């Protein structure tokens, strides 16, 4: 048997996305494209116009009387539990007694058409007694308003180390939230089953959780609900928990009316009523030596969580876990505040707090470098973790696989970082208006769910008697290429061409209790589970072939659709057929649980991560000091994907993650007015990057080393880590701004670095430089 599959390159090649041809021809069906059962109702939500208030009532007479309206529900109409909180139980489906943010669903209306439902939803009259609203992190900190208690992680004596250090500085910097802006909005279609059960088609990263939530909302056992998702039109974390509410509303109507019910949010409702990336305020007090080596750090990470906990606990935990990024922090205290505000409950978004943690420490590096008039890369380099010493994180995990130092050195060399920095500084001296900037930043991102029990996966593989294979696993496809990669794994294990393997929709009736497809873990977990199933099948088939052809089972090989057993070679299909007639079971489940991980949720200590994924990027930008307009000019990336399962897909994740990160840091601005209403709730006002924002000069290389841990074919997770490579671009912007004060001072520049913020930072820096 070929155990490594080395002769079968299928699982390491850049094959196209399994649905590529369906995508480009418009045939790929998303939830809203499925044929609707006859009489399907369409649902719209009535959203709170007030950020915080006592809900005395809502007059729905006009809603009920509107043309086409069939049914209307409020909180009291939820037959089971009115809650979709994934961890805490503080997330009502429909507001009950109190409204907690402007945009919170208060009621829902089902009508015979989408238009009828949406028009009717606007006819409600709310009776809400306004209460004081907490809208910002600062207000929440002042009021001690938290969704979860603060968490403190420390090592040594940060205060003493800071006080004793040769240099000390402190400051504050903020990073904004981010809307997922998946192109396909939230959508759920609930179809009642004949036995009182419910079948829900929806766009979700976590069908299993939607199943449980719908069951709770309907007061049904889990087995009565099936949730299915063939593909999403993008997720990015925005469909990890957020779908539950919409699926429950659709299912309640389906239950009440006996008709299928579909809830598709329009873009504005989607942006107003669903959670986003957490905005953070970062405060630091740092002591360092003449080389910029950090001796002591006191860091406060305060996030806006919105009105409920949702996933804010683990997200803020991950921010703490990444506040070191790739750096050794000897004496350190990290304080994490999870602020409760009267805004939409913020949620998972690619990086899951990691970007915000890294944002903080990279800002500290930049501040330290400017204070010492040093190249920020030098300061970053002296602070990197060691490999055998200085290699324990603030939460007590040894960094065993540190490749950041050689990776950064290699990137600095191939990108000509030093030469370019000198050229840019010279160029800037001759350019009064346009300033260029450059920065190199690393990424070290921990792979595994911090919720240890999520680090498991199941798969189901059928071999039919004609030799074709049906693959199912608990992961979901949101565009990241998971289905493509796992299909490659199956092809490699069974020695079959891809065409012999069909992928199928995520379905809670096939693989139970599946974890969300999140935390970059999809391929690691589901690839291993599928491999496990395939190896069971291959073992049975090998034994069968060995008996039949009188050879040892371990000598049977599966290659290119042919099975080699002793002197015999026969098509896989033929073996499958004869195995069927010989009553060999041709279906297998596979399972995987990530080894080595453990961690104490109360103290945030232990080994939460199986391994780290690394990368680094050099970005170069130009800034207009008259308008603050800016442009990304060039990017060099060296990223660690281990032994790539699919280089084309991995490259796609790197590119897409990077530009999404640039959007977060430099373009996308969420605005709320004084009443707590989101004013950027459509692409007309919320601007994500367009093709023109992709820089002219880009070089992307993979770090040529397999994962040191035994993952699926020694690959590494790639979904989230590249997002944080964009920190290099943010620091390039800061570098360009810093040029106006000859690089001696750090700019006061928060993210997103909009034109307006950059212009303000330039002006402030010029004033400060005169002092």
């Amino acid at each position, binding site marked *: 048997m070929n155990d490594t599959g080395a002769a079968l390159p299928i699982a390491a090649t850049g094959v196209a996305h399994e649905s590529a041809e369906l995508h480009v021809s418009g*045939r790929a069906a998303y939830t809203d494209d499925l044929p609707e059962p006859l009489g399907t109702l369409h649902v719209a939500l009535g959203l709170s116009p007030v950020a915080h208030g006592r809900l005395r009532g809502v007059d729905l007479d006009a809603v009920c009387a509107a043309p086409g309206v069939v049914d209307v529900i409020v909180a009291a109409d939820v037959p089971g539990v009115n809650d979709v909180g994934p961890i805490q139980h503080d997330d009502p489906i429909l507001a009950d007694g109190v409204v907690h943010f402007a945009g919170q669903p208060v009621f829902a209306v089902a009508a015979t058409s989408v238009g009828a439902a*949406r028009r009717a939803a606007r006819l409600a009259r709310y009776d809400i007694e306004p209460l004081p609203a907490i809208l910002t992190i600062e207000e929440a900190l002042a009021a001690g308003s938290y969704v979860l208690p603060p968490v403190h992680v420390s090592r040594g004596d940060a205060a003493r180390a800071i006080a004793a250090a040769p240099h000390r500085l402190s400051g504050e910097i903020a990073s904004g939230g981010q809307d997922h802006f998946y192109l396909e909005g939230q959508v759920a279609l609930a179809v009642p089953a004949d036995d009182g059960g419910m079948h829900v088609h929806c766009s979700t990263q976590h069908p299993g959780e939607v199943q449980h939530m719908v069951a709770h909302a309907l007061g049904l056992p889990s087995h009565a609900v099936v949730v299915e998702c063939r593909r999403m039109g993008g997720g990015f974390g925005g469909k990890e928990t957020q779908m539950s509410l919409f699926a429950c509303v659709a299912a309640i109507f389906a239950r009440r009316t006996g008709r299928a019910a579909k809830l598709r949010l329009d873009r504005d409702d989607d942006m107003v009523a669903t959670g986003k990336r957490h905005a953070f305020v970062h405060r630091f007090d740092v002591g360092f030596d003449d080389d910029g080596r950090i001796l002591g750090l006191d860091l406060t990470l305060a996030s806006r969580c919105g009105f409920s906990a949702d996933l804010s606990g683990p997200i803020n935990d991950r921010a703490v876990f990444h506040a070191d990024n790739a750096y050794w922090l000897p004496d350190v205290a990290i304080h994490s505040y999870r602020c409760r505000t009267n805004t939409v409950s913020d949620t998972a978004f690619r990086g899951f707090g990691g970007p915000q943690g890294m944002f903080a420490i990279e800002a500290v590096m930049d501040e330290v470098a400017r204070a010492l008039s040093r190249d920020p890369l030098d300061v970053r380099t002296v602070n990197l973790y060691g490999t055998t010493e200085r290699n324990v994180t603030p939460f007590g995990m040894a960094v065993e696989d540190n490749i950041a130092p050689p990776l950064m050195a290699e990137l600095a060399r191939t990108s000509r970082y030093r030469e370019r920095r000198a050229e840019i500084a010279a160029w800037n001296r001759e350019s009064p208006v346009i300033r260029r900037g450059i920065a190199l930043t690393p990424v070290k991102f921990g792979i595994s769910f911090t919720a240890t029990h999520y680090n498991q996966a199941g798969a189901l593989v059928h071999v039919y008697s004609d030799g074709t294979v049906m693959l199912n696993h608990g992961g979901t496809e949101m*565009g*990241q290429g998971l289905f493509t990669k796992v299909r490659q794994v199956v092809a490699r294990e069974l020695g079959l061409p891809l065409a012999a393997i069909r992928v199928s929709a995520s379905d809670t009736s096939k693989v139970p209790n599946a974890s969300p497809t999140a935390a970059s873990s999809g391929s690691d977990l589901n690839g291993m589970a599928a491999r496990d199933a395939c190896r069971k099948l291959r073992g049975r088939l090998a034994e069968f072939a060995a008996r039949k052809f009188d050879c040892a089972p371990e000598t049977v090989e599966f290659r290119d659709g042919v099975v080699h057993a002793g002197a015999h070679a026969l098509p896989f299909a033929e073996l499958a057929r004869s195995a069927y007639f010989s009553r060999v079971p041709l279906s297998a489940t596979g399972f995987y649980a990530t080894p080595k991980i453990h961690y104490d949720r109360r103290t945030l200590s232990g080994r939460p991560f199986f391994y780290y994924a690394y990368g680094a990027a050099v970005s170069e930008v130009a800034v207009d000091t008259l308008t603050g307009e800016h442009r990304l000019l060039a990017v060099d990336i060296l990223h660690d994907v281990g032994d790539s399962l699919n280089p084309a897909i991995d490259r796609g994740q790197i590119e897409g993650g990077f530009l999404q990160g640039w959007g977060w840091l430099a373009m996308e601005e969420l605005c709320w007015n004084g009443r707590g209403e989101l004013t950027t709730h459509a692409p007309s006002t919320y601007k994500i990057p*367009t093709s023109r*924002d992709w820089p002219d000069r880009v070089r992307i290389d993979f770090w040529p080393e397999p994962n040191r841990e035994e993952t699926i074919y020694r690959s590494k997770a790639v979904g989230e880590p590249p997002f944080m490579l964009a920190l290099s671009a943010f620091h390039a912007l800061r570098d360009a701004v810093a040029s106006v004060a000859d690089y001696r001072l750090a700019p006061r520049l928060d993210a997103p670095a909009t034109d307006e913020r950059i212009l303000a930072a330039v002006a402030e820096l010029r004033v400060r430089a005169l002092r």
Partner: protein
Amino acid sequence: MPEPIRFLLNGEPVEVAGVAPQTTLLEWLREHRRLTGTKEGCAEGDCGACTVVVAEAGGAGLDWRPVNACIRLLPSLDGKAVFTVEGLRQRDGSLHPVQQAMVECHGSQCGFCTPGFVMSLFGLYKSAPAATRAEVDDALSGNLCRCTGYRPILAAAQRMRELPAAAGWRAPGRAADGTRTIDPEEEQIAQQLGALARPGGLDYEGAGQRWIAPGDEDALAAACAAYPDATIVAGATDVGLWVTKQHRGLGTLIHTGAARDLARIERTEAGLAIGAAASLADAFAALDNDFPELHEAWERFASAPIRASGTLGGNVANGSPIGDSMPALIALRAEVVLRRGDAKRTLPLEDFYLAYRKTALARGEFVARIVVPPRGEQLLLRAWKVSKRYDQDISAAFACFALQLAGGRVASARIGCGGVAPIPARARRTEAALQGQPWSAATAERAAQALAAEFTPIDDMRASAAYRGRVLGNLMRRLWLEGGDGRAVTRVHDAAVSEAPR
């Protein structure tokens, strides 16, 4: 018996009756025809997931343009040919080169935006034999992708030319040397459209709502006089949102798009006369010819599909304070010709705007054309938009400077501004600070200070009032740096920046 709407869908004739005229093309495709390849991402023409290509009879063969189906009203397709992603596969079932290139370049991840990108690229395939990066960006300016970072899509835009050319109407529209090529099948479609043409326009009624699309300007004038309370709709790039976002019933609609004489662009003694129904794309192409300095402003105006559907007359008549054409037109001394019945009157464009969203239009009156006078000698002309994003964004501030220089002095100055006042406005105090002064750094600085203080803009999600004022002043400083004796690099998009040593 009212006439049905008639058009071609993926080459096949269709007739539509009984559907409300304010139905969008997207709703009709998805819900009435079950053509679900065309997606709704935003329902406001900002994301491009709904992009289709619409062809109409042009001078030779067809004129192919990308269109946002989500806000395009169905009856406005009467007499046109609509192509959706489902129609793009070739006769033998193989993928179109645009689709094949997207597959080969890994241009789709989640795939939801992909049909829209495919159709925008198809529009490009039909309109140009090759495209630079900037031209591709422009063609994709109305399409958002959240997954890929766009690099593989940009690669596909090049790769599609390297694949064997498609045949029939799907064939490239231009030969390698740029000459227009018209496949017989395209010619046939043009003839079919000819047969569908209605010189008298379309009078359609569906679900109790009426759509009047008069066939010429005189008939339009009569219709507007007869139905003064009707909503006048051109490309529906704003009116479409009243349907999809505000869920309004629009009552009787009068459409300008069938009045072909109203779409004419003519050079007259008075200047360039742009019919109100001329598309933004056509109007900007004509303006580019006379005022190439404005090209960047037009490139940044909305997106390619919006410029294909939207009209200059619509932008002017709508009177939004953040419309980008008016500040430039005001600086260029444009006049607007209004018509009511047979009566016509002409106003300087700046006098057309009375207050926030209030124009000088009387009941039953409509904008017939915009006349831009010829440019003078020694005109220093620039128009700059400042917004969070280069493409498809709304101005935080817009300024157009038109300085007539003579003998080292500013003989006259006109500055049109947008985004900083309730109406598109002239910066009259700044103009006065420039008028008759030597064109010098000192004058420019005085003007910059005046311009920064000229308006009292608002704070909103696009920018603060303080930023708007400051940036207007700085645009005046930029004008001096570019138009005075300075040699500084002034734009992040300058080649001097992208080609700097590295």
